C-alpha cells in the first residue's frame, strides 16, 4: 500500500462530479485523532494525496502564562502540556531552572526522579498502546493497558497525592519523601509489567490482522527522521540509536545499565516493537534505581525565593515521546522572562504528511496513533 506512487489524476476533471480528488476533514472531534487534531486530507479515492494539519484547538498560552508566574508557580502548569507524561515535563522544567540557578540536586532526589520518570514512561506507553490498538480495531488491549496503568497511577497517587497532573518535583529536588511501601510497589509493578507484556504480545504481535495493518504502513526512514527533526521511538524505529538518556546523560542515567531498542524499517510495526521493548528497559532501570536508592536529603540548597541570575538555559530530556526541551530566559527577576518548550509531539507531528502520502485513509488513523501525539503538548 505504501508503494503507491503519487500520480496526478490523468483525466482533467470537466465537471465537479468527474473529479477524483476529494478534500476531507478529519477531526477535530474524530476519536482517533487523540484529542483535537484536525487533519485535512486530500484524497483520490481511498489514497491519500496529501495532508494538512490544523492545530491550536487546545492552545492555552502556557508559555505566556509562565511570564506572569514565579518560577515555582509555573511548575504545576507544565504538567498540563503532556498530561500523559506529566512527571517528565516536570523533570525537564525543574532541570532547566536548576541549570539557571546552578543548583545541585542530591543523589536521593535524582534516583527518585529517575524511578518516577521511568514509571511515567511505562504509563505513557501503556496509554499509547491501548489507544493505538483501539484505533486499529483491537478492542481488548485498551482495557488491559488501563488496568496496568492504574497500578502506575496508584504509585503516583501514594507518592505525591495526584494521579495525572502530579507536580511531583520541585526546583532543587523533591517536596515529598518516599512512602513506606514505595520500593516494594515499584518492584511489584516491574514484575507485573514483565508478565503482562507477554499478554500484550500474545494479543497483538503475532496477530495477523495487527501485522497486516501495521507492517509497511507509515514508513519514515532514517534520513527523513533527521530531516524532520523527529525524535523518540520514531527515530529509534528507523534504526538510529538516539536516546538522550545515553547521548547526554542527566539525572544519573549514566549509572544505569540499559539498552536502546532499535528496529530497521521505521514502519508502524517497528515503532510498536520499539515501544514495547522500551517498557522492558524502563523496568530494568527502575529495578536498578530502587536497589541502589541512596539515603540522604531530598532537596538541594535552593532558597524559598527563587531568583536566578540573568541568563538563559536549555535543557532537554528524553520524554516518552521524544526530546522534550525547555529553554528559559531569566532577567534576574522572580518571573521567567521567556519560556519556550520544544514539545516532542509537535515536532513529530510535522512528519505526518510525509508518512501519510500514498497510504490509505484507514492507515492515516494508524499513523496518527503511531506518532503518539498529545494535543495538550502540540498546542500548549
Amino acid at each position: 500500500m505504501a508503494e503507491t506512487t503519487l500520480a496526478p489524476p490523468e483525466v482533467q476533471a470537466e465537471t465537479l462530479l468527474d473529479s477524483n480528488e476529494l478534500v476531507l476533514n478529519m477531526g477535530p472531534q474524530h476519536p482517533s485523532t487523540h484529542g483535537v487534531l484536525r487533519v485535512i486530507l486530500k484524497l483520490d479515492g481511498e489514497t491519500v494525496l496529501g495532508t494538512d494539519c490544523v492545530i491550536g484547538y487546545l492552545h492555552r498560552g502556557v508559555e505566556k502564562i509562565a511570564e506572569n508566574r514565579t518560577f515555582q508557580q509555573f511548575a504545576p502548569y507544565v504538567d498540563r502540556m503532556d498530561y500523559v507524561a506529566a512527571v517528565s515535563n516536570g523533570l525537564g522544567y525543574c532541570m532547566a531552572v536548576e541549570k539557571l540557578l546552578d543548583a545541585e540536586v542530591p543523589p536521593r532526589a535524582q534516583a527518585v526522579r529517575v524511578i518516577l520518570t521511568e514509571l511515567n514512561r511505562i504509563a505513557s506507553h501503556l496509554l499509547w498502546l491501548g489507544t493505538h490498538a483501539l484505533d486499529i480495531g483491537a478492542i481488548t488491549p485498551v482495557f488491559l493497558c488501563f488496568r496496568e496503568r492504574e497500578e502506575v497511577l496508584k504509585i503516583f497517587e501514594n507518592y505525591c497525592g495526584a494521579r495525572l497532573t502530579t507536580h511531583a518535583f520541585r526546583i532543587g529536588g523533591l517536596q515529598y519523601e518516599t512512602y513506606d511501601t514505595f520500593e516494594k510497589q515499584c518492584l511489584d509493578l516491574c514484575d507485573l509489567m514483565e508478565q503482562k507484556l507477554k499478554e500484550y504480545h500474545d494479543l497483538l504481535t503475532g496477530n495477523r490482522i495487527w501485522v497486516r495493518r501495521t507492517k509497511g504502513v507509515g514508513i519514515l526512514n532514517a534520513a527523513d527522521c533527521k530531516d524532520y527533526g523527529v525524535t523518540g521511538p520514531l527515530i529509534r524505529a528507523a534504526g538510529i540509536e538516539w536516546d538522550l538518556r545515553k547521548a547526554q546523560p542527566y539525572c544519573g542515567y549514566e549509572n544505569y545499565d540499559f539498552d536502546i531498542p532499535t528496529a530497521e524499517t521505521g514502519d508502524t510495526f517497528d515503532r510498536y516493537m520499539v515501544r514495547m521493548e522500551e517498557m522492558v528497559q524502563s523496568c530494568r532501570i527502575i529495578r536498578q534505581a530502587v536497589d541502589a536508592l541512596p539515603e540522604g536529603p531530598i532537596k538541594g540548597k535552593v532558597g524559598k525565593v527563587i531568583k536566578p541570575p540573568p541568563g538563559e538555559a536549555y535543557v532537554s530530556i528524553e520524554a516518552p515521546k521524544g526530546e522534550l526541551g525547555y529553554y528559559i530566559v531569566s532577567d534576574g527577576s522572580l518571573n521567567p522572562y521567556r519560556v519556550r518548550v520544544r514539545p516532542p509531539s509537535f515536532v513529530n507531528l510535522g512528519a505526518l504528511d510525509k508518512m501519510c502520502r500514498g497510504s490509505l485513509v484507514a492507515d492515516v488513523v494508524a499513523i496518527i496513533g503511531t506518532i503518539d501525539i498529545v494535543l495538550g503538548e502540540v498546542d500548549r
Partner: protein
Amino acid sequence: MANLINTFLLTDLLKGLWTTFKNQKPSKVVTEQYPLNRPPVAERYRGAPRLNTHPETSETLCISCNLCALACPEQLIVVTSERNPETKRKDLTTFTYDVSRCMFCGLCEDACPVDALELTQDFELATYTREGQIWDRQMLEEGPLPVRYTH
C-alpha cells in the same frame, strides 16, 4: 507448512482470544462500583481544602500570614485579618478559597508555616451553582458535607 496450518486454523487469532477470555474470571474483575463503594484514596491525596482548627479549643490555627495566598499561582485565596490590640497579633477574619479555579497543586499547603491549610482526601466537589465553589471560612473549617449517592 506451519504457516499454512496457521492460515487455516487461525491459531494466532485464537491465541489472542484466549488471552481475552483468560481475563473474564470474576476474580480478575477490577471495575470499581464507584458511587456505591467509594474508592480509598492515598493518604497524601490532594483534594478538598481544609482550614485546620485546634482540636481542643477549636480556634483556627491560621496566623493570617498570607503566605498561602502569595504562593498560589491562580491567586484564588483571599485572607483578611485585623490586628488584635491586646495580643498585638493578627486575627483571622475571613478566608475565601475559590475551589473552581484551584488545580490542587499543593503549593499553598507547602507554603503554610503552621500547617493550617491542608488538602484533604475529599474529592467530591461538584455543586449546582458557581457560587457554591467559593468556599468561605466556615466551609473550609467544617469541610464538605459527606454525600451518599443512591440510585
